[in-house]
């Protein structure tokens, strides 16, 4: 498996070439370099997966953990050292496939979407940097390497959100994303240091005796790490950056803020899962409750948004929360006895990456066609964009959990895991799943059905009410539709992958079997959600009746404003932290610490001013002073010594 190093090296090389020489290259060549390197990476990832899973299980019935490369980067002590390397195990190989597939699709798609943009080469350079860091994160051999790449991922996300750097909102959004995730990463780092100190290693397989003797510290360290993961994975209340991150180019949202980077938190918890389940099950269950609340919150907010990318952003938050819940409801490492959630979470991660990537890319195609994010500029687009329409519909069915699309299978496993943890959790999550179906189809009907904005405008133009001829929406070019079709195919078939054969909580093969009661109830709920959405949003007349009623409802308005979470954060930071803590500290710094230093400077300056007259430039007066000195010295020598 030595060739795996090139999976990391190729995107890095492509980043360096594009970053250093990119601006001199024509657009097609620059994009070609990035896409070609990613295509090779994707092929290598598939080869890795085939070889890894093809080699079969070892004598103990587990897939072996292979470490083709491991270099000691920073030796800190006898046992404590920071390594850099590549580690292959079932979940990292699965992530390699997810990342390289979605990234390749986004690279191809961006040819059409970003065509003619200023900074096209820079865009591809950042995409390569992101892919490199994300791949480095998943193959990390130890938690510290993961942290290093974790931050690199954060930087590339910052760069890509702020890609349109002349747009004020984009700059604000990129800063917000960076600061919020950095704030969470502080806890992650503290957690890593705790873990490193008490477990004596940064690796994922610490000495069991040390862990057992560390006591309460290990749950604390894992809890702190989860806060880092919650920041990246946009768990409540650290989710505020993700909706704003939609200011970046849409393919970037598909890659980073839907499919790959935001699941890093889930991946982190999955990575530390053996330690979580053994030493900190109560932390794991807390994660489940946080996840469940986030899932509901985000789903409710998604029902009230009008910007289609915001709807998708909140849907992402909600779906990632599903994955967190699935991990959190695990009560043992055995998939047959309460450990099903681990497999379900990874399965959902896989299928969600594909269909959410597809949804975002479809949204990009729509935005490309109508030049707006707002739903009021859409409507009736199914006639104009047939390919986008069908692929978007497939993705919606997948996320709503309608068989045979992939989302059904993974969500069903999650719900089964929830029911086996506690019926309340199961019912709660089923309800959120029904909401998911509702808001996705609300979005779908608003975009593709109803009265067409274009046709309305065209009629106005023909009547002479507006001077400018409206611009007809058009199907996206082939570079954009190909990834859509490919991802739609994956979304159709991914559910039939025998996922439990490859990944399960204790590594042994697990046969996925659908729980009939859960499956039937979740399909019923999903269909109910879809029908409600269809009833309200399919025809404009129904929508108008309801929207009049709904406009006055405070709850809907609050949901549209995301329950004022951003305002709450602003209040906390501006009023409490800035005014209550930062101001006094700044005052102390300015007046006490700086004041003392200023005093020293002012005193010596005043003294210097008082004696500067001596430097008159008149040589003879210098000589007189010199003579006085000599005379005094002579007197001292004569009379005192």
């Amino acid at each position, binding site marked *: 498996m030595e060739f795996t190093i090139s999976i990391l090296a190729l995107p890095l090389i492509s980043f360096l070439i594009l970053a250093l020489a990119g601006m001199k290259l024509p657009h097609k060549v620059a994009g070609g370099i990035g896409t070609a390197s990613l295509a090779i990476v994707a092929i290598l990832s598939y080869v890795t997966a085939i070889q890894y899973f093809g080699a079969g299980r070892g004598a103990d019935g587990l897939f072996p953990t292979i470490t083709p490369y491991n270099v000691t980067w920073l030796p800190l002590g006898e046992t404590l050292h920071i390594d850099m390397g590549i580690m292959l195990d079932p979940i990292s190989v699965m992530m390699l496939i997810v990342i390289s597939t979605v990234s390749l699709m986004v690279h191809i798609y961006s040819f059409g979407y970003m065509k003619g943009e200023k900074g096209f080469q820079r865009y591809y350079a950042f995409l390569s940097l992101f892919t490199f860091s994300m791949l480095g994160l998943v193959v990390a051999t130890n938690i510290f390497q993961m942290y290093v790449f974790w931050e690199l991922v954060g930087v590339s996300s910052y760069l890509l959100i702020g890609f349109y750097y002349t747009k004020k909102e984009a700059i604000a959004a990129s800063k917000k994303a960076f600061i919020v995730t950095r704030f969470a990463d502080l806890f992650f780092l503290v957690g890593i240091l705790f873990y490193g100190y008490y477990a004596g290693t940064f690796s994922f397989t610490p000495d069991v005796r040390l862990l057992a003797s560390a006591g309460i510290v290990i749950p604390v360290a894992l809890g702190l790490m989860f806060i880092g993961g919650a920041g990246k994975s946009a768990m409540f209340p650290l989710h505020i950056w993700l909706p704003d991150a939609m200011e970046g180019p849409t393919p970037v949202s598909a890659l980073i803020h839907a499919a790959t980077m935001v699941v890093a938190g889930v991946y982190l918890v999955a990575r530390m899962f053996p330690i979580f389940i053994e030493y900190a099950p109560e932390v794991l269950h807390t994660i489940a409750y946080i996840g469940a609340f986030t899932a509901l919150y985000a789903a409710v907010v998604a029902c009230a948004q009008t910007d289609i990318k915001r709807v998708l952003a909140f849907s992402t938050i909600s779906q990632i929360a599903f994955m967190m819940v699935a991990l959190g409801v695990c009560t043992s490492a055995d998939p047959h006895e309460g450990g099903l959630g681990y497999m379900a979470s990874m399965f959902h991660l896989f299928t969600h990456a594909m269909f959410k990537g597809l949804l975002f890319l479809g949204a990009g195609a729509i935005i490309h066609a109508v030049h707006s994010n707002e739903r009021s500029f859409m409507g009736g687009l199914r006639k104009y964009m047939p390919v986008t329409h069908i692929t978007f519909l497939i993705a919606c069915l997948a996320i709503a959990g309608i068989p045979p699309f992939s989302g059904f299978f993974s969500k069903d496993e999650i719900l089964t895991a929830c029911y086996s943890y506690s019926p309340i959790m199961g019912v709660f999550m089923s309800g959120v799943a029904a909401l998911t179906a509702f808001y996705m189809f609300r979005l779908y009907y608003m975009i593709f059905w109803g009265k067409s904005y274009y046709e309305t405008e065209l009629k106005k133009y023909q009547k002479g009410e507006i001077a400018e001829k409206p611009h007809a929406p058009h199907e996206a070019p082939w570079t954009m539709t190909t990834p859509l079709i490919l991802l739609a195919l994956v979304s159709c078939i991914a559910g039939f992958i025998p996922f439990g054969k490859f990944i399960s909580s204790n590594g042994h093969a697990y046969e996925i079997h659908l729980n009939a009661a859960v499956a039937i109830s979740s399909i019923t709920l999903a269909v109910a959600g879809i029908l409600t959405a269809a009833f309200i949003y399919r025809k404009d007349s129904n929508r108008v009746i309801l929207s009049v009623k709904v406009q006055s409802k405070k709850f809907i308005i609050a949901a549209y404003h995301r329950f004022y979470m951003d305002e709450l954060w602003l209040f906390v930071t501006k009023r409490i932290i800035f005014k209550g803590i930062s101001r006094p500290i700044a005052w102390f710094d300015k007046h006490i610490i700086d004041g003392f230093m200023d005093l020293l400077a002012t005193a010596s300056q005043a003294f210097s001013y008082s004696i*500067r*007259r001596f*430097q*008159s*430039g*008149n*040589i*003879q007066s210098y*000589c*007189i002073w010199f*003579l006085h000195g000599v005379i005094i010295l002579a007197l001292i020598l004569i009379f005192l010594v």
Partner: protein
Amino acid sequence: MIPAEYYLVLAALMFFIGVFGFFTRRNLLAVLISTELILNAIDINFAVFNAYYYPEHLEGFFFTMFAIGIAAAETAVAIAIILNVYRNMGTIRLKNLKKLKF
């Protein structure tokens, strides 16, 4: 024989006349001449102390000769500096040479 004190008084007078001239003259050349007076006063001291108190040694005389040689060289350098000052500033009056100050 003339008592040593006479020579010493003469040397002291010359020294302080030189110091006075150095401090009060306005012309750089006059200041230079004053320094020569100071140097010569010192030379007299050397010679007198050698001749009166350590007649068997010669260091004082040698030192005097040495100082005269050095003084000649130093005067040449000083004159060169003064000439350059005159070329650049157009004057050698000390009152006007006050550029090196705070």
